């Protein structure tokens, strides 16, 4: 991790930490203070995804720039806003970080180190190292649904990922350009489908083990019944991409010969 270079030659941050936030007034101040303490060399952007509480004011009180969406777009739209901001202001890399306090800022350097080793998409995985980070319990139903999606991703990408739904990620400059142009915006699209899109476009995707905490405040983005619908929708969406992938694979094979 010694060769992680967080700033450019002028001492300016190369990296933008993007926090999509929906009504996270209660947790945000603590998260921003923690980020400033553990990662003082990184710039931060809070994307206020149509909050009705004082989320934007809480961020500004910490001296953090805020991009306020005129209405709620969901995590995908908020993230894409962050990517567009990062590209517009010339950042080399970006981190996706939860505004509700479940991610640990001290693990950001581990993600950045993987970027510096050549990865385009780094996923902070709760399950990559079972012997250390297994404390995070998602419940049986949700765990099962995540397993089905994981299997679909394995079939479609030809790779095994231990945590396809993690929202603790790091992005390289080429991937930022790619995602700034188009990013899945439905629930689960921002995690699983985005991961698969990166794989299909030929970006290098790696996982890094992280530990996550129980939410500091705020409510989970979706409840159980809607969750079932969204897992089904994501599955259909993933499977409908399958023919495209086959075509790309054939094209790649043709290019090689």
């Amino acid at each position: 991790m010694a060769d992680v270079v967080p700033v450019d030659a002028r001492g300016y941050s190369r990296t933008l930490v993007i926090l999509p936030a929906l009504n996270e007034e209660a947790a945000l101040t603590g998260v921003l203070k923690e980020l400033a303490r553990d990662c003082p060399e990184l710039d931060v952007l809070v994307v206020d995804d149509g909050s009705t509480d004082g989320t934007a004011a809480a961020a500004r009180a910490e001296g953090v720039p805020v991009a306020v969406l005129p209405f709620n777009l969901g995590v995908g739209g908020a993230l894409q806003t962050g990517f567009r901001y990062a590209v517009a202001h010339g950042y080399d890399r970006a981190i996706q970080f939860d505004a509700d306090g479940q991610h640990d800022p001290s693990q950001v350097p581990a993600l950045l180190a993987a970027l510096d080793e050549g990865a385009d998409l780094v996923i902070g995985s709760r399950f990559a190292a079972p012997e250390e980070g297994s404390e995070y319990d998602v419940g049986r139903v949700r765990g099962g649904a995540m397993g089905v999606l994981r299997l679909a991703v394995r079939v479609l990408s030809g790779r095994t990922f231990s945590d396809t739904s993690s929202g603790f990620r790091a992005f390289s400059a080429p991937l930022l350009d790619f995602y700034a142009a188009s990013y899945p915006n439905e629930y689960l699209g921002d995690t699983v489908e985005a991961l698969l899109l990166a794989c299909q476009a030929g970006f290098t995707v790696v996982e890094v083990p992280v530990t996550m905490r129980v939410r500091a405040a705020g409510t989970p983005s979706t409840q159980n019944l809607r969750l079932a619908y969204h897992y089904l929708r994501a599955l259909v969406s993933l499977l409908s991409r399958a023919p495209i992938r086959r075509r790309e694979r054939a094209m790649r094979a043709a290019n090689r010969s």
Partner: protein
Amino acid sequence: MSVGAHLFILGLTLVSLLFIVRMVRRNQLPSRYAMLWLSIGAVIALLATFPGLLDRVSSALGIAYAPGTFFLGAITLLFLIVVHFSWELSRLDARTRLLAEELAVLRADPPPDRPRIPTPGAQPVEP
């Protein structure tokens, strides 16, 4: 069908056509949709005016029950229109999202214009 029923349908169709023309005149309906609904209205008016027309078309198509021809055509057309509207809604949704995102980026606070860590040899930038 009785002559009265035909006159009733004809009247209803003509009122609908006038309503569509009025929407176009008020700039409430783009002309491409006006064309669509006016053509549909014209076909219905034609069928109402010439009662034997539907029967002849049906026998030409080999459909024994004449109203079946009408319903087949109507359902097929409405299905295509709904699919088209789904597509157009999705496109509008994507564009609205993009505009919202661009608006948020344009209105966002600029990044802090200061070195995050003073590195040796880094030039301080005067505002």
